[in-house]
C-alpha cells in the first residue's frame, strides 16, 4: 500500500508544471532531524518532498516537487521556509 501510494503521488506530480529554482527554498535544521522521532514533515507534505534515510540518518528534501503550501513549516518550526525565487516553483493551470 505504502509503496503503491508513493508511486501514485509521483505520477500525480509528474503531470504538474514546474519552473524549477536552482536553489533549495526549504532548509530543515538537520541537527534537529536527528533527535526528531515523529518526522511529521514526511507525513503531512502533500508532495512527498521529505523522506528520511535511516541508514544515512539524513532527511532528503526534494524541493523541486514542492507545492509551496507551507504545511511542513506549520508542523515543524525547524524548517526554514521561504518561497522559490520570483517566477519559480509550481505553476497551476487548472486549479
Amino acid at each position, binding site marked *: 500500500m505504502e509503496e503503491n501510494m508513493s508511486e*501514485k503521488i509521483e505520477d500525480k506530480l509528474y*503531470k504538474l508544471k514546474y519552473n524549477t529554482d536552482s536553489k533549495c527554498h526549504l532548509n530543515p535544521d538537520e541537527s534537529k532531524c536527528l533527535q526528531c522521532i515523529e518526522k511529521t514533515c514526511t507525513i*503531512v507534505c502533500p508532495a512527498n518532498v521529505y523522506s528520511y534515510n535511516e541508514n544515512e540518518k539524513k532527511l532528503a528534501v526534494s524541493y523541486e516537487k514542492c*507545492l509551496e503550501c507551507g504545511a511542513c513549516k506549520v*508542523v515543524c518550526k525547524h524548517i526554514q521556509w521561504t518561497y522559490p525565487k520570483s517566477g519559480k516553483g509550481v505553476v497551476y493551470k487548472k*486549479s
Partner: protein
Amino acid sequence: MQEEVSKNNKVDVIVVGAGPAGVSAAVTVARGGKKVVLVERGTFAGSKNMYGGIIYSHAAKEIFPNFEEEAPIERFVKKHTYVLLSKDDSTTQITYENPQNEKNAFVAIRANWDKWCVEQAKKEGVYYAPETLVRELILEKGKVVGIRTDIEDYFADIVIIADGVNSLLAKQLNLRDDIKPKNVVLGVKEVIKLKPEIIEQRLSLKNQEGAAVELVGGPFSGMFGLGFIYTNKDSIAVGLGVSLEDLKTKKIKPYELLEKLKSHPFVSDLIEGGELLEYSAHMIPEGGYNCLPVLYTDGAMVVGDAAMLVNNVHFEGTNFAMISGKMAGETALAAFEENDFSANMLCLYKKKLLNSFILKDLKTYKDVVKILTKRSSSFMGYYPEKINEFFGIFTCADGLEKKSKFQNFAKNFFRKRSLSELFLDMTAGIKLILGILK
C-alpha cells in the same frame, strides 16, 4: 515596471499578491486615482492559487460589475448537495436547488479567473508586476515604507499585504503568530477531465449547470475534515480539506486520504473514466475570529487569507478576500485624503470589516471550529455514521419486523457511546447553537 514607477521607485500604494484580495485592493485604489503597483511572485496571477472552489457573485459583482458577461466562468452552481458518507459505502444526501437564485455562486479555474481580474485591473490603471517575489518589507522608524524584491527596492505610502495564508510579510511585522496545526486545514485536490455531457448526466444537471457537493464522514470519519466536488465545464474537481493536527496525530498522508475518498463508490462512480489534469495543494486558515492577526499597522494593512479571513462553516473565502481587499483600498484612499498613513488612520479598515458581514460572521462562528475539532470523533464521525445506519433500517424491507430493528439501533446507539460522552456531545451541541444565535 521601471518606466511606470517614478524615478525614485516610489508610488502611492503597493499591493503584494495578485489573488482575489490583492487585485480588489489594487483596482479600488486605481479607481480612486492613486498610483498603485500590484506585485505577484508567480509567472501569472493564479499560477500559485488553488481553492476548494467557489466564487460568490455578490463579491465578484462588487469589484467587477461586468464579470458575468466577460469573465471565464466554468459553471454557475445550480445544486448544493451535502452527502454523509458511511464506511459501509452507503450515503445519505440532501440537495438544495433554488431556480430563483441560480447565479449566487460559480466555479472558475483560478489560473483563468485571477488572470482575467488582473487584466481588468490593468485596464483601470493598475501597474502589474508579475514574477516579483517580495523578500521583505522595508521599515523606517517602525513604519512600513516599501518592499524589497529579488531585484530592487520599491517605496509607497501604503503597502497592502495580500500574500496569502502563509503571509511571511505579516509575520515579519509580528502582526501574527506562527500558525498552529489545529488552526489550519490542508486542502488537496485533483482536477479530472470528463466530457461535459457525462458530468451533467452523472450529477443530473442540465446544460452548463453546475454542482457543489460537500462530503462528510467516510475516509475522514472522526477527523476535522470534509471532502468536496465542484464542476468545471469539462472537468470535475475532487478534493478534501483536513486539519493538519489530525494528519499529524493520526499519521495519515493527505494524498492517501484523497485516494480513499476517490475510491468511495459515491465519488468513484462520478469520476470513472476521467483523466487527471492537475493535482494541487494549499492551506486554508480555519482559526477564525479567535486567530485573527493584527489587521493594520503604520503604513500597512493585511487582507484576505493573509488576514485569515475565511468562514469555514459556509466555505466562504474568496468573497471575504475580495471585500476585505476593497475595504483596504477604500481606507488607503481615505488616508490620502487626510495625508495620514499611520495606524491611527488605517484602523478605519478594521472598522469597515467590523461593520460588514466579514467580521460579523466570523464572530458568530468564533467557537465552531474549536468545538468541532474537540468533538470531531462524534460530530464528524459517530453521528453521520448513525444517520446512515438509521436510513439503512428505515429503507430496508426484508420481511423482518421494524420494532426490534429500531430497538437494537437505539440500544447500540447508547451502548457504543458512554453517557459521559453523550453528555459532552450534548453540551457541545448546545454551546454551538447558542454561540451562533446569541
